[in-house]
């Protein structure tokens, strides 16, 4: 009987330098810069917090620079999610797992944690030796220091995440004086733990066994998709790969003898953060981080052989055929992506300053008053979505002779982000023979500030 459970095979990724590694460092610097600094960016507002980006859950509003997002704008979230999904599908279909390799926070944080590990314990060889050695004081010290720094970064990550949900300076001060709400400690604590666990301990196990995106991105691949691949024809030749010792240093001589260009140095395998051999072909574990490309290029450069034995290519290109990028699939993702992006932009640009709805009171639908007129009642919900106070007047139109009664309420002043419900009664002395149902329009007219369009809400008046 074979083993049903597999012990983890340790991976000791070796460091590598190259253009993709530099690109990844740049993406990492940008992502960390935005993530860690954004909560501290101040933003001037007449009303509301002075934090540029703040997700105010108790107040049910999100502040994004000059944009204010309300629960009613949930459709924006739907649009953003659709855009992200389509973008992921399209990019993956065209360029492979770009998201995994360059942008996924699992990849970014793991990169940082590996850099810390390397700084303290040394590169691949040193780490392997360290793990083979007994539990010496030196090993304990190095391992302990690594975990301590990891936990530090994890804590900063968790705390920073928490700062997006409250005023950053105030929450930080409260956090360290024990005054912060339980949710802040719980969130920070949980994220510290998961960051340390996922980026420090579990790493490639997350991508291989936990992440659904990693798995379903494969279905978006086709033969034109850009993948990181080993050029088998060039690397293996007709006689297979051979080390420099066996096959020689002279490229022309090797090729003459049918020996492939791969010198079997194993560098591409050693740098791989998920522990695969790219020369075995496209594998589901591969996160397309391109470090093996850097590794192979570095070796080829040293030998002064042409680069590209491991490179970004497509299955069609490898087979000597043309790679098509503009095809129905690309358009099928691209056109909806463009449409929804435009729709979202339009929605954000045309955010209504005032949200109003009118619902007729249905029990009773109509009431006869002592002067013989008929009264209908309405509930008007108004929500000031702007960032300044607004004064409104309610009027009715569309039904001649209809009289609006709001009791003693003449004008409604709503503070920014304030909403209220008004009870309005409309009285109407119906001419004989009037239809049972009459159309009626409620006009919510902003009188302060001036220049805002009135919001018209259609309703009806029931006579009997």
């Amino acid at each position: 009987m074979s083993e049903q459970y597999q012990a983890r095979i340790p991976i000791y990724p070796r460091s590598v330098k190259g253009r993709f590694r530099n690109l990844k460092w740049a993406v990492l610097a940008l992502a960390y810069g935005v993530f860690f600094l954004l909560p501290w960016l101040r933003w001037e507002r007449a009303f509301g917090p002075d934090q540029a980006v703040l997700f105010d859950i108790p107040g049910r509003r999100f502040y994004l620079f000059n944009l204010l997002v309300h629960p009613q704008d949930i459709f924006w979230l739907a649009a953003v999610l659709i855009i992200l999904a389509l973008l992921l599908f399209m990019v993956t279909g065209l360029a492979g797992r770009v998201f995994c390799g360059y942008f996924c926070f699992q990849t970014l944080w793991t990169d940082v944690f590996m850099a810390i590990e390397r700084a303290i314990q040394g590169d691949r060889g040193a780490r392997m030796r360290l793990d083979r050695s007994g539990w010496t004081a030196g090993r304990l010290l190095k391992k302990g220091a690594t975990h301590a720094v990891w936990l530090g970064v994890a804590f900063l990550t968790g705390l920073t995440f928490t700062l997006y949900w409250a005023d950053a300076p105030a929450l930080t001060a409260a956090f360290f004086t024990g005054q912060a709400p339980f949710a802040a400690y719980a969130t920070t604590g949980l994220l510290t733990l998961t960051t340390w666990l996922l980026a420090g301990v579990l790493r490639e196990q997350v991508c291989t066994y936990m992440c659904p995106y990693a798995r379903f991105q494969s279905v978006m691949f086709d033969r034109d998709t850009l993948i990181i691949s080993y050029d088998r024809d060039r690397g293996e030749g007709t006689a297979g790969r051979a080390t420099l010792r066996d096959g020689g240093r002279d490229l022309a001589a090797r090729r003459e003898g049918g020996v492939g260009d791969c010198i079997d140095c194993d560098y591409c395998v050693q740098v791989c953060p998920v522990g695969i051999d790219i020369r075995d072909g496209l594998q589901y574990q591969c996160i397309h981080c391109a470090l093996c490309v850097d590794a192979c290029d570095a070796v080829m450069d040293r030998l002064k052989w042409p680069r590209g034995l491991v490179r970004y290519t497509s299955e069609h290109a490898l087979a000597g055929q043309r790679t098509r990028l503009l095809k129905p699939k690309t358009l099928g993702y691209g056109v909806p992506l463009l449409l929804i992006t435009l729709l979202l932009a339009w929605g954000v640009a045309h955010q209504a300053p005032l949200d109003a709805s009118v619902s007729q009171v249905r029990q009773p639908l109509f009431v006869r008053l002592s002067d013989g007129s008929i009264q209908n009642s309405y509930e008007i919900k108004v929500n000031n979505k702007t960032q300044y106070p607004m004064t409104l007047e309610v009027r009715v139109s569309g039904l001649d002779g209809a009289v609006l009664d709001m009791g003693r309420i003449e004008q409604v002043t709503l503070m920014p982000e304030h909403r209220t419900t008004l009870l309005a009664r409309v009285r109407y002395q119906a001419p004989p023979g009037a239809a049972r149902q009459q159309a009626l329009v409620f006009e919510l007219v902003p009188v302060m500030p001036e220049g805002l369009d009135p919001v018209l809400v259609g309703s009806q008046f029931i006579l009997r």
Partner: protein
Amino acid sequence: MNEPGHEQQSAPGKPGEVETTGHVWDGDLREYNNPLPRWWLWSFYATVVFSLIYWLLYPAWPIAGTYTKGIAWINYEVEGESQRSHWNSRALLVRDMQTGDAAVRQREFLQVIAEADHDTVLSDTDMLAFVNSYARGIFGDFCAACHQTGGAGIIGLYPNLADDNWHWGGTIQAIEQTITRGRMGYMPPYRETFDDQQADAVAAYVLSLAGHEGGDPEQVSLGGSIFQGYEGGCYACHGREGLGLKSQGAPNLTNDIWQNIDVTGAQSHAERQALVRDLILRGVQREMPAFGDRLSPAEIRVLATYVHQLGGGL
């Protein structure tokens, strides 16, 4: 039937090959072995441990008519009295309703409104919005059984609260009084006093007060003299003009609002006259119970304000 055969289990050799368990069915059906990571197994054990702790703490297993209650508990207050129970979400809800932030804020604002004067409340959109939403709940619990949701009432049984016609007065004070102390409405039956002719005449007069044309002028005039005279004495409560008397709960007869009979729904003048005549002969006796010891003064205040607003004030 094919017994599973055995062959040497195989380890992957070439890329793309998968390890097999060595089980073979039907000669060529092999079982792949893609082993789960061991930490996955440990995660599973961890969830088992979690559920054991959970069972220990919280209500979990049904046993015959009862269930394991767990050792976690919850303290809560019901009207100032502290209670303790095993942890359950119903007690959590009670605690939220009694001492939760929102419940406390709601009670505080209720008190603010109860202590404010009527004019302030009626001119403040936020207070009115609170009144309308808070009192609607009380109305649903205590009033709607008779007066119906929204206060529409039922003709002949319970008065309509959504119009502008008030038997006992429509000011907030008057409505508060009605709710707190209750009301007894009484109109004596006239079947012993009037003969059919007299009753018909008074009915014709009353309809003419409300503006219903088509009555026999002689009947109307006879009815008027009975109404205004010693014989009927109707004026004593309904007034000389028929405008009613709020201290008696006597309705205004000069409008076309009828709480006890469906006059506006009748098809002909004769039908209307018959309805009014029957009412005069039958009399009316109605009672609204007192709610003074069932609702707090603050609740009565917001309820009265709500009812006052339904019809649009006086």
